[in-house]
């Protein structure tokens, strides 16, 4: 009986080891000197920060990190603003063309991004957008998924609440920001987290549209670094991987309650 109660804990602990081991080994390798990396000890015998110093001095990780933050932040802010606004308008106003616009936006959900990279690339080279921040950013500024999600939540806001504000003389912008947005705040934060994560990890499009090394985002930079300048120097590759992974894990642990709640919320819609 006692064993039966402890069994789930035992299995979960084994699973946790599998989940965490790659990260532990990554950090461990990054703290080892080049000669020690094939040594099996998990705790480095002569821990050194030399790899970190070398990477931060000789390659552009800090630059790539900043690029990723800029791209992910601007995209997230734009998605949150436009998707929430469009979702609100489609849910709460009747006007000529509403159904057409909604179907138009929903239909974009069916088209995988992979299908759009070729025309996007041609557009970018035509307009001179390749190798700029705008080039990386523009495809993600609004999302069909976000509009759909926000519409679902906005529909639950009672019309009377909005009309009361109108009678009180509030203008439409104020009603949107001060009445509608606070009502769906949990959904907005969930959408924000998803958007940030997927843009932070985006690989295919930034890989295509960016040519100069100094404009690379972190995933693209790390990929070129690992297969190029640091080829087979696993202590350096693992240091680069640690630099790109640890900050996000820390932010996640800080915000984990919100993130998990957010996924649950969007998953249930």
């Amino acid at each position: 009986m006692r064993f039966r109660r402890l069994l789930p804990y035992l299995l979960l602990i084994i699973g946790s080891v599998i989940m965490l081991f790659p990260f532990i080994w990554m950090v461990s390798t990054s703290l080892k000197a080049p000669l020690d990396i094939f040594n099996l000890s998990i705790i480095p015998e002569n821990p050194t920060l030399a790899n970190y110093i070398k990477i931060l001095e000789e390659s552009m990780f800090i630059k790539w990190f900043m690029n990723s933050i800029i791209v992910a932040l601007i995209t997230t802010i734009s998605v949150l603003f436009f998707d929430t606004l469009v979702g609100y308008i489609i849910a709460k106003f009747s006007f000529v063309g509403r159904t057409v616009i909604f179907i138009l936006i929903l239909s974009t959900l069916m088209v995988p991004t992979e299908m759009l990279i070729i025309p996007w690339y041609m557009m970018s080279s035509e307009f001179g957008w390749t190798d700029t921040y705008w080039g990386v950013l523009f495809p993600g500024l609004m999302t069909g998924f976000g509009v759909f999600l926000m519409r679902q939540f906005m529909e639950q806001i009672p019309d009377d609440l909005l009309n009361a504000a109108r009678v009180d003389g509030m203008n439409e912008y104020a009603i949107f920001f001060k009445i509608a947005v606070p009502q769906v705040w949990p959904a907005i934060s969930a959408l924000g987290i998803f958007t940030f994560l997927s843009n932070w990890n985006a690989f295919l499009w930034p890989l295509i549209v960016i040519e100069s090394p100094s404009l690379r985002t972190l995933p693209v930079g790390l990929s070129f670094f690992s297969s190029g300048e640091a080829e087979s120097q696993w202590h350096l590759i693992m240091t680069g991987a640690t630099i790109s992974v640890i900050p996000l894990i820390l932010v996640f642990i800080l915000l984990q309650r919100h993130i998990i709640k957010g996924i649950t919320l969007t998953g249930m819609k």
Partner: protein
Amino acid sequence: MEQFKSPQNQNNKTNLAKKKKTSLLHKFRGNLKYQKYLFVYTCLLLPIIFYLGIRILPTLFTFNVGFRDWNLLSTDIQPFVGIENYVTLFQDEIFIKSIFNTLIYIILGVSGQLLFGIIVALLLHKINRFVGFFRVIYFIPYVTSIVAISWVFQWILMGNGIINDVLVNLGFPAQPFLNSPDQAIYVIIAAMIWQSIGFQMVLFLAGLENIPEMLYEAADIDGATGWQKFWHVTVPLLNPTIVFSAVIGTITFIQVSFTQVINMSMDGSGGPLNSTLSVVVYIYQLAFKQFDMGLASAATVILFLFILALTIFQMKVLTKKFDY
């Protein structure tokens, strides 16, 4: 329920307010309507331009390019060639191989993440302590960069890496893993599953918490075994979650397969011997290594139809009506 009460009060209040302000309202009605329309169309202007210019028209453009002989290196003319690109693709062994690989990625990968997601969620549902702690640990891989993780797996699994060291020390032969055309694709799938367990776990945990305890008690009275309860109560009630997870899992897998294959396969492009090549990687090679936009566009159209068919199939097969 509570949510609905407050608007009711609000409603009463506005009704009172309305009676007092009827004449005022009359004056403002025209103005209000004008203001509403102005608001709606100004706000929709940019989104309409965006969705038309960056989503809809490019999609149609891709269909168009797919019917043309369009090479970026010879820019002058792009003659219409009908379905020639499609014929070429279906005669191309590598393309067929990449479709086949993508199917393996999806079938094994998605069912694997559903299975492990459910198992972890069930285990977490059983315990009372440290639930939050375990949830964080299982979720960590999901928030980390796929590129970074791919390189970590390459390092762990390489010929003289730690896993092989442990295998040899335990008396097993060393495995080639990513170097072997037979094993590489399964190693990549395992890494994909490892990364997405946490996401599926959260969804299933929420699904499990929505199942009323009452149903299990009723099953207990009927003398159901644990296994029977799982198949006849848990699985049917989790059905909507399973469909949602499968559809989302498939779509993300198709994208992730690119990042993971580029960063995990030995030659960085679907090797060894194209054994890990996915459709998206092949499209990338056609478009951005060979600059054959016509062929690449035709391939994305096939990918689009493939995903569409798969999604419809999943919705049809997985969604079942259960009677109680």
